[in-house]
């Protein structure tokens, strides 16, 4: 408590006798804290993606080692978790005259796809349906325009299908309605389950278990966990950069604090003459740094919170990330720790040397 009182007293002394320097220092570290608070949201990639309910956070993709027979029940495996859509696909063989219009090697990638709910959510919640109502009710395939604009039928796996329509830039793929797919192909080497919300980690683990149980021949499994880990890693990197920026900004203003401390040399000499240990002096200065950086950060957080509507407009995170009290507390504690770390070199300068040296330094 005595140390706290002494620190407060010394800060009051700065404000009274070295007002200009102190105000510049305080505004400077508030500015540095504000920068840290602003960029803090950019490091929260996972939270932002979850809030935006991004499709990759809701997608569970399976690549099977070969075409495997599939029943309708398997497509509905994850219905209890809330399914937005399911895409299934299988490799097919085209007859030679159709294949001739494709580039060399394309036969390895020719697939027929179908969507359980017509793909309205594949590219986000406002996606366009892949097939019209009329096309859904007919037996046939939608083909890519690279097969030719005027083609009226196409032979797949030896079965002739009428062409219901054409698409472009889909990479030689063919599209069928779910009913047509189950009737004529009923096998899959590719499945994509898209849930209607982001599942919890526990639910994701359950989904993985269910899918591995139902499809033992899974060769590749890509779940939201993969994207979350990548984003988390990116977030850590961003946090490092933001912290570095804060440290550099803070160091720009710690020279002012050093000046204020130099003005305190006579006081330090008196403390030491009256029995104060160097450790206690170190603690007083540390307390000052913590109090000043803490109050500057609190002020920055208050300003950030007050003007968040404007700030969110100019930040890429927009309204996808809402700062909670926990976030502000985390920002506060991080800035205090960083402020302490950045001031360590200055402590060595202050506390190095004898009493007479400190006195000489002041007089110089």
């Amino acid at each position: 408590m005595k140390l706290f009182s002494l620190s407060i007293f010394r800060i009051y002394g700065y404000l009274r006798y070295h007002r200009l320097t102190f105000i510049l220092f305080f505004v400077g570290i508030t500015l540095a804290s504000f920068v840290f608070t602003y960029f803090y949201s950019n490091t929260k990639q996972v939270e932002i993606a979850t809030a935006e309910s991004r499709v990759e956070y809701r997608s569970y993709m399976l690549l099977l080692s070969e075409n495997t027979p599939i029943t309708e029940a398997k497509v509905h495996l994850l219905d209890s978790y809330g399914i937005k859509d399911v895409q299934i696909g299988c490799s097919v063989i085209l007859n030679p005259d159709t294949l001739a219009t494709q580039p060399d090697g394309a036969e390895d990638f020719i697939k027929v796809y179908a969507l359980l709910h017509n793909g309205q959510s594949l590219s986000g919640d406002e996606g366009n349906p892949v097939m019209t109502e009329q096309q859904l009710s007919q037996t046939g395939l939608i083909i890519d325009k690279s097969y030719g604009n005027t083609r009226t039928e196409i032979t797949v796996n030896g079965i002739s299908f009428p062409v219901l329509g054409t698409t472009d830039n889909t990479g030689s793929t063919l599209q069928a309605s779910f009913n047509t797919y189950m009737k004529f192909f009923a096998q899959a080497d590719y499945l994509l389950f898209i849930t209607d919300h982001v599942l919890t980690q526990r639910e994701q683990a359950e989904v993985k278990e269910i899918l591995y149980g139902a499809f033992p021949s899974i060769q590749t499994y890509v779940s939201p966990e993969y994207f979350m880990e990548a984003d988390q890693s990116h977030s850590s990197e961003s946090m490092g950069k933001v912290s570095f920026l804060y440290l550099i900004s803070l160091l720009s203003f710690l020279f002012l604090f050093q000046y204020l401390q130099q003005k305190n040399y006579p006081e330090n000499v008196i403390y030491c003459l009256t029995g104060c240990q160097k450790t206690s002096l170190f603690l007083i200065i540390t307390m000052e740094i913590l109090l000043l950086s803490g109050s500057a950060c609190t002020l920055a957080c208050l300003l950030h919170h007050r003007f968040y509507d404007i700030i969110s407009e100019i930040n890429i995170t927009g309204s996808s990330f809402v700062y909670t009290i926990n976030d502000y507390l985390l920002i506060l504690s991080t800035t205090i720790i960083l402020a302490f770390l950045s001031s360590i070199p200055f402590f060595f300068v202050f506390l190095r040397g004898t009493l007479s040296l400190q006195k000489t330094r002041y007089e110089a």
Partner: protein
Amino acid sequence: MKRFRLLLEFYQKSIIATLFLIFFMAASLFYLIDVLGYLGYKTYSLDMMDSLNLNNGVYAMPADAFDEQMNGYSPTYEELLSHEFPAIEMTVKPSHAYTYTPWNGGFYVNIVICDQEFINRFSFVDKGKWISQEDSSLDAPPQIVVGGFSFSGANVGDQLPFVVYDDTTGNKKTVHAQVIGIDREPTMYFALGSTSNEIAAHDIFYNTNNVVYMSRDSFIRMSGNDLSAQQTNFLVLFREGATIKEKTAVYDFLAQHGTYKTFQELRTTSQQTILADLKRELPLPLFMLGVSAFSMISISVLLTKKHLVDYRIYYLVGYSRKKSFGDTFCGILGMGGVACIINLLYLLFLNLHFSDLKSANSDRYYNYLVMNNSAVYIVLFLLISVFLSVLIPFSMLRKNSTIDLYRRPL
């Protein structure tokens, strides 16, 4: 010399803080130059659309069969021409070729082969004259307009060598072409190869090290053949006064044979991309500049405070107050000035060696334009921060008379 030593003494009072400030400010400006270069590339592409008056038309992306695409033949384009839609003023579908020049150390060259309509409609020339079909006689060398960093040493009237294959012998031969015009930096390559729902201006006009514009006749005379590559996409420009109904007929046709984006949609996509980039890229350098400017104000105050002790001695030996103001100003200007000079030199370095940098680090400099107007922002930043930084020190010097400096503890 004496003044210079006094100036150095100004910094010696807090040399680490000064060096730190210079480093931080230089890094902030460096980052700003990079971000402006990145953003400038995208905005300049959009400006190109305006300057070429591309505001009434569409970018067509036909979905022709693969083998037809590979042969550079577009049935959709041919069919569009055969329909003779009344809304269409002209279509733009330039051909491209690639060759080598041993000039200036040797490099590969992008050639845009222009037909008559293209020549009449566009002009990518800042110095000299634009190409034309008429003035190319059989005896004269082929005429070209060049642009890009690789051609920075070329002048109008120069004859540049190009290596082409001789069809008759199968060997390489060198043909000279005459430069009649120069497209000064920044040079954009006019290309219609991108196909996407999110097509933007920077996909049509993209950064290039070099480009050569020439008429088809000149190209045939130079290479001895017409083996150029055609891109499947093309521009459709509507005539002034075309009705909505007439335009809709073209839209319907293009929708049946692929996709298209109107210039307005293309512009909107570009603006959205630029806005998103602005939000993502600009805050960091701006915050850094803000912090460094405030840091400069603080360090200026600190240095002046420390220097006041010396001034009371200087004043006694005949140093005028005017000189003390001058020294303080020079001292503060020097800190920001060094940071700015470092960045102006960096900008100069970019101008001189951009093509080398781009080939050495294409990821970083591919979507990048050397923005020489960054120099204006740098100088502007320097002036503003120096102005703000001298305010408090000047008031401190003004407030304290010589006798005050003696009487009051500093």
